């Protein structure tokens, strides 16, 4: 083999080695601009009116997450300290509003230092470090947006985020733990940005939760700060009261299932529901039946002559939907909290 032949063989090998050490530093796609979420897509319901209570369908949650969700009472969001709670980073891209993205570059070398993101939903700001810095210590504080670093994989930006606060995988009633990690893949096709997130949560997910959202570049960006959240006190409640349902006493458990003519089990989530094989099992399960605790009790059967009617059935534990100080199902959450 002559030298040219050797070179033809070895050149790709060294090219590959070069890729090993240079790929993370090479920025290849510019995401700068204002992007609006495509709210009519698959994630529309979560961007707008929000999920129903006990609507855990198709989510790979653990039994522990399910129990957390069944104990959840919407009135908890009316507690002052909960009212300004925002979406965590692996959920906020399903918010209804846009996001502005810009780059931070070294003024001399023009190396990409960071990608910044201002998210209009809940007025969050986020930095994705592109300079290879390490993630913080286990003893560092957690934030809603966590700590993010990014690398390029071809034309795709992959972002890993740790140190996220406890939040939710499905807003308000399915928890995500403060030990979750979010891995995002950003792909740009012209004026379309596809955002794919893979969330790992060793506490509340039995398998990674994979979601995607699409955003469209806004050619005439209108981006205003939106969310100066300030809590308000609504009604009296006992000091330290935390609204919740005792195990087995959630009176709304079957409402969503019955409304959509689904078996109860199908609404309770679990990794098996993500796979096609579950359809066979679905056909064998009975449709849920729901009786609203808000409905007036059925009239007692006609009493025999000479006897008084029976007592009406007891109210569900804990009273109505929202609990003390909560208005309706969504609780007395701040105005516009629906995102």
């Amino acid at each position: 083999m002559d030298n040219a032949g050797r070179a033809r063989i070895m050149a790709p090998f060294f090219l590959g080695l070069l890729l090993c050490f240079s790929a993370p530093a090479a920025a290849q796609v510019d995401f700068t601009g204002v992007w609006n979420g495509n709210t009519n897509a698959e994630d529309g319901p979560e961007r707008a009116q929000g999920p129903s209570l006990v609507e855990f369908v198709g989510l790979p949650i653990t039994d522990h997450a399910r129990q957390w969700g069944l104990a959840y009472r919407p009135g908890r969001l009316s507690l002052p300290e909960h009212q300004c709670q925002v979406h965590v980073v692996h959920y906020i891209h399903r918010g209804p509003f846009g996001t502005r993205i810009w780059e931070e570059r070294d003024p001399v070398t023009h190396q990409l230092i960071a990608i910044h993101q201002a998210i209009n939903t809940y007025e969050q700001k986020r930095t994705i470090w592109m300079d290879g810095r390490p993630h913080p210590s286990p003893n560092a504080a957690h934030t809603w947006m966590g700590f993010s670093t990014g690398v390029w994989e071809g034309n795709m930006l992959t972002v890993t985020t740790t140190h996220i606060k406890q939040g939710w995988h499905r807003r308000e009633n399915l928890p995500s733990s403060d030990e979750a990690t979010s891995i995002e893949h950003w792909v740009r096709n012209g004026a379309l940005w596809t955002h794919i997130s893979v969330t790992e949560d060793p506490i509340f997910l039995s398998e990674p939760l994979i979601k995607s959202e699409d955003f469209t570049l806004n050619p005439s960006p209108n981006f205003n700060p939106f969310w100066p959240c300030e809590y308000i006190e609504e009604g009296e409640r006992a000091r330290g009261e935390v609204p919740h349902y005792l195990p087995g006493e959630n009176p709304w458990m079957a409402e969503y299932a019955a409304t959509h003519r689904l078996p109860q089990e199908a609404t309770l989530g679990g990794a098996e529901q993500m796979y096609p094989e579950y359809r066979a099992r679905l056909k064998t399960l009975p449709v849920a039946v729901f009786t609203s605790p808000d409905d007036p009790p059925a009239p007692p059967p006609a009493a025999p002559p000479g006897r008084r009617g029976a007592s009406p059935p007891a109210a569900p534990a804990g009273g109505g939907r929202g609990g003390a100080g909560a208005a309706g199902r969504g609780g007395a959450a701040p105005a516009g909290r629906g995102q």
Partner: protein
Amino acid sequence: MTKRALVNASALVAAVVGVSVVLGAQQQIRTPRQMPFPRQPDWAKLEVETLHVQGQVHLIAGAGGNIAAQVGDGGVLLVDSGYEQMSGKVLAALRQLSNRTLRTIINTTLMDAHTGGNAVLIKEGRLNQAGPGLGQRPNEADLIGTSKLLALMTGLGRDKIPVERWPPSVFSGKQKDLSSNDEPVVILAVPNAVTAGDSMVWFRKSDVLVSGEIFNHASFPYIDMAQGGSINGIIEGLNVMLDIMVPKQNQEGGTMVIPGYGRIGDEHDVLEYRDMVTIIRDRVQAAIRKGMTLSQIKAMKPSATYEYEPRFNRDPAWTAEMFVEAIYRNLGGAK
């Protein structure tokens, strides 16, 4: 194999290796778990870490319970002292933060993990004033705790807790105020929480709260009923923390908290912990009202602590079952 095939194979192998290196580097990054302090530690291998919290306050982690260090021109104030075996490393870490005199140590609770280093560390310090106060040693740092903490220590006796670890400077009532490094420091008694002698420390200018044992990122809160602890005292302590703490924006930042164990937090972390402890207390209380025995409560499916167990049932010395049993006995459940 032809030359072309060799070229292609070589490129493919190199590319796969390259992508694997990139992906591998990302896959190794995960949010670290919050773990309790090891029960039988190899002291020589343990390291302490210092992290700036905000203002004048720093966290010294890894010496047992968390230690807070307030550092300024006037000297150093510590909240808690860690295990005695870690005192040398704590001092070394402290000297990286400041070469000023150690003036004050405040103890938040009884346990060795918080008071074990008292005897060693106070000898590194000196009182601020010209003459000693009642019971104080002028050539040592001041050592402060609630009067009930001192009573617990004396009650246990010097065989179990050496006199050098007892706080000579005590206060009774709801709080003790002092100024350190031009900052108001408020010590708030937390009656009958983990023990009868607990307190938390609030650095008002730095806007940092040091919770002691009532807030713990690594396990359910410990209740030492033999030393006067109670579930409702812990919950009230957590509610007081929520009263004090003010987030900066959207329930984030602002007042920061150094917990008994684990990472730095803010109000939302305390809030979720308070919610959890309250919900578990309510479940045990409801079971008691139904007339359930402790065995029946322990056998409940799901358990009273079910959804919180993967996150907080990590300390074999203080399991979820022990926590439930303590609540049950504390709330007056039948035997």
